[in-house]
């Protein structure tokens, strides 16, 4: 039997900023091992070009455009935290905070209102919807989503939690306030709002399931999402990121239901952020897939 020639590589790793030689490995086999100096793997960014994109864990040394002496550049990404941890924390906060305001825990409103409940039924409905929304998000984080990256920078958790928890407190304060004013058009308005909200919650969930099914467990492959048998996914014909479209719809429904300006403001800020994300995702779809459907818009059909 002929022996297969095994190619060994020499690998040197330089700091991306100072170009100091950090590490030299003189006999590396097929896969580049993740080396640890003081930084755990999730913090390490190894790249072929100091200003270029990071190599992925799956990249194989033999398939990279390097000679037999490979030079890589290392960048420390800073303290990292897992996406799952961030999502759970940022969603658990609003769930609990809203409930604190709903049950009128002491020191929020005047003492005579402590532990009382609102006399308006829409306030109870709003609490159920808000809580349902965040429970759904928590469950999706645990059981549905498949994340491309394992981690994000640590400072993101402070930024994200401030945003979610802050807005939750601001909205919940007014909705559960003893002087809350129910919607102007009463039951009609609330019924319409609830319909929109539920429709978009189901829609959002359908999209998450569809996106999950695009990707086999443990893989990080990327494919174009297409409409499935579920009618809620037919929106893929017109939009690249329908999960954001449905999310916007849910919050518009909640705004209509509560007729509360802080909720409208939260919806607006969320919409702006999601539009930025949707446009980025749409652009990367167009870059990656030559045959990407041309009818699709990033987030709003034909508009945005």
């Amino acid at each position, binding site marked *: 039997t002929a022996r297969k020639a095994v190619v060994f590589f020499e690998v040197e790793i330089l700091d991306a900023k100072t170009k100091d030689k950090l590490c030299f490995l003189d006999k590396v086999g097929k896969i580049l091992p993740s080396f640890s100096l003081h930084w755990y793997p999730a913090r390490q960014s190894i790249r072929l070009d100091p200003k270029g994109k990071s190599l992925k864990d799956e990249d194989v040394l033999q398939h990279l455009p390097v000679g037999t002496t490979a030079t890589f550049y290392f960048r420390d990404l800073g303290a990292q935290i897992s996406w799952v941890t961030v999502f759970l924390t940022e969603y658990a906060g609003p769930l609990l905070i809203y409930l604190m305001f709903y049950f009128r825990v002491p020191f929020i409103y005047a003492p005579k209102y402590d532990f009382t409940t609102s006399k308006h039924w829409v306030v109870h409905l709003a609490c159920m919807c808000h809580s349902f929304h965040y429970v759904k998000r928590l469950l999706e984080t645990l059981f549905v989503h498949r994340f491309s990256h394992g981690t994000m920078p640590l400072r993101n958790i402070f930024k994200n939690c401030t945003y979610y928890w802050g807005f939750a407190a601001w909205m919940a304060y*007014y909705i559960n306030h003893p002087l*809350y*004013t129910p919607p102007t058009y009463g039951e009609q308005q609330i019924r319409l709002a609830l319909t929109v909200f539920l429709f978009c919650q189901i829609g959002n969930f359908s999209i998450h399931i569809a996106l999950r099914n695009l990707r086999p467990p443990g893989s990080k492959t990327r494919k174009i999402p297409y409409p499935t048998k579920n009618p809620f996914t037919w929106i893929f014909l017109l939009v690249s990121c329908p999960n954001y479209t449905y999310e916007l719809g849910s919050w518009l429904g909640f705004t209509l239901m509560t*007729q*509360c*300006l802080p909720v409208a403001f939260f919806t607006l800020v969320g919409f702006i952020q999601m539009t930025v994300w949707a446009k980025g995702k749409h652009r990367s779809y167009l870059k990656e897939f030559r045959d990407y459907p041309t009818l699709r818009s990033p987030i709003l059909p034909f508009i945005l």
Partner: protein
Amino acid sequence: MASGEEDGTVEEKETNNKKRTKGTIATAWLTFYNIAMTAGWLVLAVAMVRYYLQKGTHKGLYRNIARTLKFFQTFALLEVGHCAIGIVRTSVIVTGVQVCSRIFMVWFVTNSIRQIQNEESVILFVVVWTITEITRYSFYTFNLLNHLPYFIKWARYNMFIVMYPLGVIGELLTIHASLPYVRRSGMYSLRLPNKYNVSFDYYYFLIIVMLSYIPCKNSTHNKTS
């Protein structure tokens, strides 16, 4: 020479000419703008000195110069536009925040809360602003004319060391003085219940503004430009 090559160079020349014309227009406009603003703040300075020499007191001085101050400070909003269209190489956000903080003081504090217009702190920050702006706009003007006297350059990079903290003190003291009047009048505030289920208390908003001076006015952005 093939005609294809000739066309190429003609097109290039046309775009270069267009760029050069745009550049000249921008420079001309900016020069005019900075001269006008230098003149405006000089007028303000002269008016303040004259008033004080004539009346011997600072009482009523703000009322006297209020219109001119509001006009030139508001006009500075154009600078955000300059950054947005790229004829000035500064971040839109940094310029925006700086101009907005000035507009806020002028329109939402000293203009709306008449009782504090005779406070010494008002004179303090107006004087500081005047000196700072005259220096800044004349610096830009001379830069655009490619002839920068050393004195102006020195003033621009050194006076802020004294002017900046004095200005901050003047502004903070003014806001602080306005608090009792804001509380009593309930101005710019919205109470519950209302159909939009929101409330706003200008009194607490002003307190938050005062507290935000600590991180905001300490940031490095403010220590240059």
